[in-house]
């Protein structure tokens, strides 16, 4: 436990120091890379609530990540082209203000995860895994066949959306914005898992029947967790579009769902900092393996299989023998 806490501090330290070095040595690449880690970690923190703490194996979080991304892309696209998005109840031409985009993305993703959650939570086990996957695929195919926003080719927004008083095109500024969101996501997760509600959803993971028998409406609890989880992932998606200034159907692809899941598992499930470690490890692996071989995914697959077959507890779990022995 002590080592894990020590490690957690190191992770945060690295997330601060690497971009600072990048700033000092004028290597914006490292700032952008860290920003990417942070954004993916936020998505992982979202999934971790549902998957790690509540035991809801969602294989469709790309639906929320991608929708957050597309909402951002579409709003910004309309603002860029000064094109009417809808005319009722007011005329709305999209926006490129992050402060307006975020609440909209959050609302849309919350509504979407509410609908998907409501339908999916009627099932359990394998059916839940498959139905969440299928909903994400449904959106994926929709994004491919809907021509207005680029279809298969994706949608470019050219300029990052703006934030009052600062220049978001500056990598370090955008990194700071994402860092603030990471801290917020961590804070929300931390508060939730230590609350009465958190107690209920963590108990559901272990023994849902018991939780029902003490009179707690487990379906309602699971649905709320699912919505919060999906919304956080959606916000990460919004930031991801701004990072790349581009959004394409690949954010809705099931590989994205799988990768978000990998961040959570690699880092260690139901550990607050797990997704950050997982996302960082994933990106480091991608960068280092990618430098040596084009076929880095082969080695990634191999490492993952070995991890699942032999380590099981994730990277942070390696340092926490107590939980390991359970």
């Amino acid at each position: 436990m002590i080592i894990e806490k020590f490690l957690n501090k190191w992770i945060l330290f690295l997330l601060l120091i690497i971009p600072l070095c990048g700033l000092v040595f004028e290597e914006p690449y490292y700032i952008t890379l860290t920003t990417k880690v942070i954004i993916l970690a936020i998505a992982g923190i979202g999934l971790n609530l549902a998957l790690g703490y509540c035991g809801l194996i969602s294989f469709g979080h790309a639906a929320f990540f991608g929708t957050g991304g597309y909402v951002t892309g579409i709003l910004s696209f309309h603002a860029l082209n000064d094109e009417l998005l809808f005319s009722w109840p007011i005329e709305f031409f999209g926006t490129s203000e992050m402060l307006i985009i975020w609440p909209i993305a959050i609302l849309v993703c919350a509504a979407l995860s509410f609908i998907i959650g409501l339908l999916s939570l009627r099932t359990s086990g394998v059916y839940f895994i498959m139905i969440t996957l299928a909903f994400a695929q449904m959106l994926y195919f929709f994004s491919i066949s809907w021509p207005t926003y680029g279809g298969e080719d994706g949608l470019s927004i050219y300029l990052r959306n703006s934030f009052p008083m600062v220049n978001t095109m500056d990598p370090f500024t955008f990194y700071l914005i994402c860092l603030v969101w990471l801290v917020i996501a961590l804070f929300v997760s931390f508060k939730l898992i230590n609350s009465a509600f958190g107690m209920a959803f963590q108990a559901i993971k272990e023994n849902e029947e018991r939780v029902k028998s003490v009179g707690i409406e487990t379906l309602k609890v699971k649905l709320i967790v699912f919505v919060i989880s999906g919304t956080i992932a959606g916000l990460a998606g919004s930031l991801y579009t701004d990072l790349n200034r581009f959004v394409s159907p690949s954010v809705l692809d099931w590989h994205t769902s799988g990768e978000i899941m990998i961040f959570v598992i690699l880092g260690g499930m139901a550990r607050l900092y797990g997704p950050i470690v997982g996302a960082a490890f994933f990106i480091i692996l991608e960068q280092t393996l990618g430098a040596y071989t084009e076929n880095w995914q082969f080695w990634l697959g191999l490492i993952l299989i070995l991890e699942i077959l032999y380590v099981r507890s994730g990277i942070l779990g390696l340092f926490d023998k107590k939980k390991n022995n359970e």
Partner: protein
Amino acid sequence: MTSILFIEQLLNGIQFGTMLFLMSAGLTLIFGVMGLINLAHGSFYMIGAFCAALVAGITGSFWLALGASLCGAAIAGVLIEILIIRRLYRRDHLDQVLATFALILLLSEGVRWYFGAFPLYLSIPDSLNGTVPIFSEIIYSKYRLFIILMGFLIAVGLYLLITKTRLGIRIRAGQNDREMISALGVDISKLYTVVFALGAALAGLSGAMIGAIQSVEVGMGEPILILAFVVIVIGGIGSIKGAFVGSILVGVTDTLGRVFLPDLLKIFMQPAEATAIGSSIGSMLIYILMALILITKPSGLFGKS
């Protein structure tokens, strides 16, 4: 005119459905008997297609290529089952999902490494080229008809295998009660390997047959894998009968939806708009179908609740 088009598309849907059945039969068997979610099932589809393309390139024979797809996928299935999969049977669904997802990365990348990134082509033999008249006015592709025939033959074969043979009895016993079957003295790990290889072989065969009308490339197994999952969720996981009904349902719905929905919408919409919306909704139709079925029957049409 439209009725001819309709029948033609209906046949296309059935053809698509029978191929889906070859995929989903293995998937549902593997889940039913071993309790394993195998995301890497699509990789056997790809491996089968590549084996076929390789053998066809060397020998020039389509029939040898089909045989190679069966054998190649089965051998790959046995190897992967022994090396990796059998360690996953006792794990929870999450571990299975992740490990087999990782397996996809590994196998896809491995195939890309060996064969290169360019698609390969597998040509249809002359005897199956061209069209054949059915009834008086309807002309249909010989090869697609051949696929439908093969699909139905294999469905019947599977049915006989499961109901009439000793292996089938063991498979059914394994589906009902895993403890009992090992108590009966059946070598369970051998049975698991055989079932896994059978599933892989069926997937490989369908990969080769589809490979001849599309192209043989890395990642070709993924879209069909997801459809196969939709099929078994609709049919009820573990049920072969469900897989068959689900396959045809999904194949027909998907094909007809994509073709006719835009036309249907043109009745009360601008043509351009109708095409856009129709094709978008058409591509989502089977997922909507699945959601509707699961809302009314949470464990599928033929699933055990």
